């Protein structure tokens, strides 16, 4: 479904991605883990066309994305819940969702909003509240909800668990699984919370300094001693695990 081959991305002279190969299959959840500054966010943003890759190819459902502009790419069935949530702060929750549906057919709007409210009931209560006044967890739910409103085939999630309480993290991860299983949406999940991410994902990639150094089944990666040492702090199985880098 999504295929990256030899993708190289630069910020000016600084190279952030050094020939990345990555694959997300139809209906798959794929986790991408790595230390701060490894280039995870850059990879998701490169898929979305900004920054544009300087080399390599990005194919989505057989079509080349590299070189196309962001707003075009976002209309091909990819949705991005970017790092830092990027809610529209002065607009209400419902307006945020409505904006997410800008590229979708208007007749789906009512059912899609209902679906988001079923996944995140708290958003229904807050539907008239301004996005900027939501709590961090609520904003993350809204960011995912807004991404879903465009009816994507592939969902790019950038650190959805960042700064959230363990309960909320579990809720969000359950919802991601739910979206994947019931709607068949493929997910590329960037996470610092490696333990949760690798348990949820079928496959995982490890990004180090702009290069993929390891990849494989989620469970296998979880048991990999290198990963345990680097990302799981000795393999603690609590919710606090995986915050180290």
């Amino acid at each position, binding site marked *: 479904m999504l295929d990256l081959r030899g993708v190289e991305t630069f910020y000016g002279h600084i190279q952030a991605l050094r020939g990345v190969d990555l694959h997300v299959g139809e209906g798959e959840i794929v986790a991408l883990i790595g230390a701060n500054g490894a280039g995870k966010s850059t990879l998701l943003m490169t898929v979305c066309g900004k920054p544009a890759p300087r080399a390599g190819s990005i194919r989505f459902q057989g079509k080349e994305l590299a070189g196309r502009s962001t707003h075009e790419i976002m209309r091909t069935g990819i949705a991005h819940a970017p790092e830092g949530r990027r809610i529209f702060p002065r*607009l209400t929750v419902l307006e945020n969702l409505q904006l997410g549906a800008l590229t979708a057919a208007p007749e789906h709007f009512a059912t899609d909003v209902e679906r988001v409210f079923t996944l995140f009931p708290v958003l229904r209560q807050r539907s008239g509240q301004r996005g900027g006044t939501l709590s961090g967890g609520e904003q993350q739910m809204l960011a995912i909800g807004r991404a879903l409103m465009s009816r994507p085939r592939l969902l790019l999630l950038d650190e959805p668990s960042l700064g959230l309480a363990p309960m909320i993290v579990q809720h969000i991860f359950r919802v991601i699984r739910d979206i994947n299983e019931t709607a068949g949406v493929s997910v590329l999940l960037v996470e610092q919370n490696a333990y949760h991410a690798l348990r949820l994902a079928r496959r995982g990639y490890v990004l180090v300094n702009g290069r993929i150094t390891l990849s494989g089944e989620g469970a296998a990666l979880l048991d990999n001693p290198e990963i345990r040492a680097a990302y799981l702090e000795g393999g603690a199985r609590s919710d606090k695990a995986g915050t180290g880098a």
Partner: protein
Amino acid sequence: MARPLSAPAGTLRREVSDALVFALIATALALPFIGIYTVPATAGLRLATRLPDLVAIAGLAFVGRLGLGLARGPWAAGAAVLGLAVAAIGWVGLLPSREVAVFAIAAGLVVLIRGAMRAARGSAEPGAGRRTGADALADGAARLLPYLGPVLFVVALVLPFLPFVDRRLLDLAILVLTYVMLGWGLNIVVGLAGLLDLGYVAFYAVGAYSFALLALHFDWGFWACLPLAGLFAALFGILLGFPVLRLRGDYLAIVTLGFGEMIRIVLVNWTSLTNGPNGISGIPRPSFFGLEFTREPQPGTQSFHQFFGLEFSTLHRVIFLYYLILVLALVTNFFTLRIRRLPLGRAWEALREDEIACRAIGINPTNTKLAAFAIGAMFGGFAGTFFAARQTFVSPESFTFIESAIILAIVVLGGMGSQLGVVLAALLLIGIPEWFRELQDYRMIAFGAAMVAVMIWRPRGLLAVREPTIRLGRRRRGAPS
């Protein structure tokens, strides 16, 4: 160092020493500005001093600061009396100069109002929290707010026929409505799309000159030129839009400011086309469906008063112009209210909030921005056409930077994005200063004081509430509001 006024009230001693420090700083600042001045002498300039003024200013700073300090504490009533006394001293002319007297009156009144408000509240609900009188006022206003729009609308509809309305008031109303329309037009760019435009007057000028030139060279009338002028202005909007696509905030403001000046300077210097600073005169007045507003119509045509069997009156034309600008302004308003609910308007608001998130949801920022510039400019062009038709004369003098600043002030003061706020701000900024023109320079002081007052009590603008464009469940009743 002086404490911020928001700190809780201290003891009487502290307030006095605080005011002393304040007065000292004020004196130091006033010394070069007020204390010393130059007079021409036989050989060059001579320095002279204005000691009484300086002393008066220092005293005023002390008393004013003390009054404001006291007005927050248990001595609020005393502060009110103090304020009254200062204003009275200024009024009876005990102070060395007129300027100082005016400041004394203004400062005294501010202290009086603050002290009285606090004292009144203190006796009504002792130990009240940090609610100010302005909050209470705002609460009351909020309850009346839903009716304000319709009431203003009805008043605007019947205004020319109200008994006390004369030619002067009607002219003023036309002026205010022109600014309301400009404010609404700029609100699309600034309030909705969040693009700070300091050169909006350029589009006003393009509209006015388009009509003037088309009328001059091709003898076209107002109604034929109105859409064309709007189109030209929109093209200029796109012309401005392209180079500034990547700019935001301060940088955008600077470039738009330059653009506004460029248009004006071109109008001044391209004498062969625009007749330079002398302007273009003899612009035709708009007709009422082909009926002219003249006493003696051209042979073979009828004029307005003949057609309707009325006694000729120049007032007819003024009333017509009034309704014309009212309709143009209302069209602008209706357009904005409508487009906010359509994808383009929603994209504008999203763009104002976060450009990166905008891209992430599939909005094309380039087209969205250009559309905002073009449509905002188009309404500016319409207003310019009206302006030219009303004055029958245009010159570059009417399109200086100060016009852009006033229009922007109307939008900001009204509360960015608020349609009703624009109306109130236009009344405040245009209507009141014009009406009190005989007060001459003092009206500018009052104007400045009003601006400061608004910024203190309503820092986000007069009406900063943003109406959501969609609510849950269109049942209305079930939805919590």
